[in-house]
């Protein structure tokens, strides 16, 4: 529920900014975070894990496609592109809490 609020209400996001849990899709470009949960099941979830989106692993938001979607993440020294909706299935923990 909290996660939906992140997307639709920017103001409330700031209020919850102190909470260190974010959706991967909300990670600002250039910032690092640790993967907490992958809420995507079946083959797609496994593929994400195979590419390094594993709980405890570090990811960096490195950029985005010209249209703003898909998003590009640095993980394990490689670049992987995910659509925003897919990235929203992952929760991450920011290293420095409340820095946005």
């Amino acid at each position, binding site marked *: 529920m909290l996660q939906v609020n992140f997307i639709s209400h920017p103001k409330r996001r700031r209020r919850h900014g102190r909470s260190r849990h974010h959706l991967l899709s909300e990670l600002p470009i250039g910032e690092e975070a640790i993967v907490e949960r992958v809420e*995507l099941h079946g*083959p*797609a979830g*496994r*593929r*994400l*894990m*195979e*590419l*390094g989106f*594993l*709980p*405890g*692993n570090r990811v960096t938001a*490195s*950029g*985005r*496609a*010209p*249209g*703003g*979607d*898909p998003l*590009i993440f*640095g*993980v*394990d*020294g*490689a*670049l*992987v*592109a*995910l*659509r925003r*909706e*897919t990235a929203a*299935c992952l929760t991450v923990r920011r290293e420095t809490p409340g820095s946005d």
Partner: protein
Amino acid sequence: MSGCDACPSNPLRTGKLVAPARRTVAIVGPPNSGKSTLFNALTGLRQKVANFPGVTVEHRIGRAHLDGDQEVDLIDLPGVYSLSPISEDEQVTHDVLTGAMAGIGRPDAILLVIDSTNLARQFTLAAPVLSLGIPTMVLLNLADELRRRGGVLDTEALAQQIGAPVALVSAARGEGLEAVHEFLTGALAVPRPLELPVVQDLPCCREWAGRVGERASYRAPAPPMWTRRLDGLFLHPVGGPLTLAAMMVLVFQAIFSWAQPLIGAVQWAIESSGNWLGSALPDTALRSLLLEGIWGGVGTVLTFLPQILILFLFITILEDSGYMSRAALIADRTMAKVGLQGKSFIPLLSAHACAVPAILATRTIENRRDRIATILIMPFMTCSARLPVYTLVIAAFLPERPLIGPLLGTRAAALMGLYLLGYLAAFTTARLLKSSVLRSEPTPFVLELPPYRLPTLKTVLLTLWDRARVFLYRAGTIILLATIILWGLAHLPLQDGKAPPLEQSVAGTLGRTIEPLIEPLGFNWKIGVGLISSLAAREVIVSTLGTLYGIEGDPESEGLQAALQRELSLGGAVALLVFFAFAMQCMSTVATVRRETGGWRWPLYQFAYMSALAYFGALAANHLVRLVVG
């Protein structure tokens, strides 16, 4: 993850490679780690390689010659992230490794190719591969790049930990391959393994890989600076799409202007050799076959070789540089609108060369309905066989004028328009399919973006050489055969021992039979003969028209372009282009679609749909042009 420490060790059944008559060695590794490059380096073959994941989708077998007259059969396999396959190309690798692939036994040994610049992730695959119990050598590829970017690794320590020989190699430069030869001849001692994780659990394998890397003092290389800089440009909100558009303009302009001197040279060579042959031979049927049939037909097709090579030069640079994945990324939003995903875009781009390998390349698409939709729209992509037809008709009917200074001329713009017409048809069709019979839940889009790499001159030249050979082979087989048959049909039945007038020949009768059907499109019976013959291959229409006009007139005084101007109205010319943009005149594509979709249902629908679209599209084009031009 504390449970990982409790992972029971899985002792590896090691042993010397026993030496039967010929052993098979499978090359396994994650996508884009350089397996095919290694395969090529060891076998001397030229399996297609490029810088994006998913280039190899089938297994290929090649023979490597070792010291002392030994030989092994190497099996190049599609890249996998794990041994649990999701897509069809990954299934191939799984089947070969488990011995389930018909005709190939379980491999005797494995070469595991890992991208050394990205050990933590790539090495995760080592856990399930090593626990297969097949003697394995780990090759840490791209050693040159690792070094250049300041990464280090202790291969001895790594080998000690995993109980398998390890070597740093650079398959592209041929570095470190002696160790591979030694392993293959069975000379390398195989140390005992220490521990291996439980295979099913991915996080476990991953942690194991990280730990093993740490103990081997792995220092990850610095991030590739050039990749960051180039992505800053190519994925810039404004600069990115602009660069993509500029590159397209450059390709089309190059096809028309850069190719001109080369085309002139090829034309001159064919014409002068034809003239010489004409004066040297007595006036017999053989002379007529050689001049009208082969020189007039096959020779005309050959003049398009320079343009096709320029197209392939660009495709190769796109594929080898790493830009391909970025193009797929930029296209993803458009693809999402028609119900497909960016991953479909990579096969669609390679279809500009030829639809057949592109249809095979769709094996990387996990969702079956997405895959079939991509296969069904594939023949709308302008393949290189359409290029001779397009450039011939455009050059005959459109005078060259600069549009944007010297950057873009009218002819290049028209050619670009035809490519865009192909995209339009493809995307509209995809939209229709994905919102009806092939509707499916959107599959998550996950695409790895490889670092940019400078294409080596050697790979580029070898690719061009291979493409030239394919083109010449086609010209010497299918096009030659079609031309000879056509020449025969144009000279039969004999009247008083002499060839009949062209209109009364078998070819002429055939053309005249379908003439009522194609007349509304603005085509005469000769174009009709060309359309029938182009069912063999698209470019055969060019050789057919070359032969027909050669029989009719004096080929030296009147080129094919002039003949077309006389035979076709402007409406008919545009209709011909539209017809070729939409029609599925390629039997190899039909056969490939049948094989890949597992039956005749889809290729038959596809053929009928595309033919109808071609016919009515051409009809509309002819009437529209006539309405406008009057």
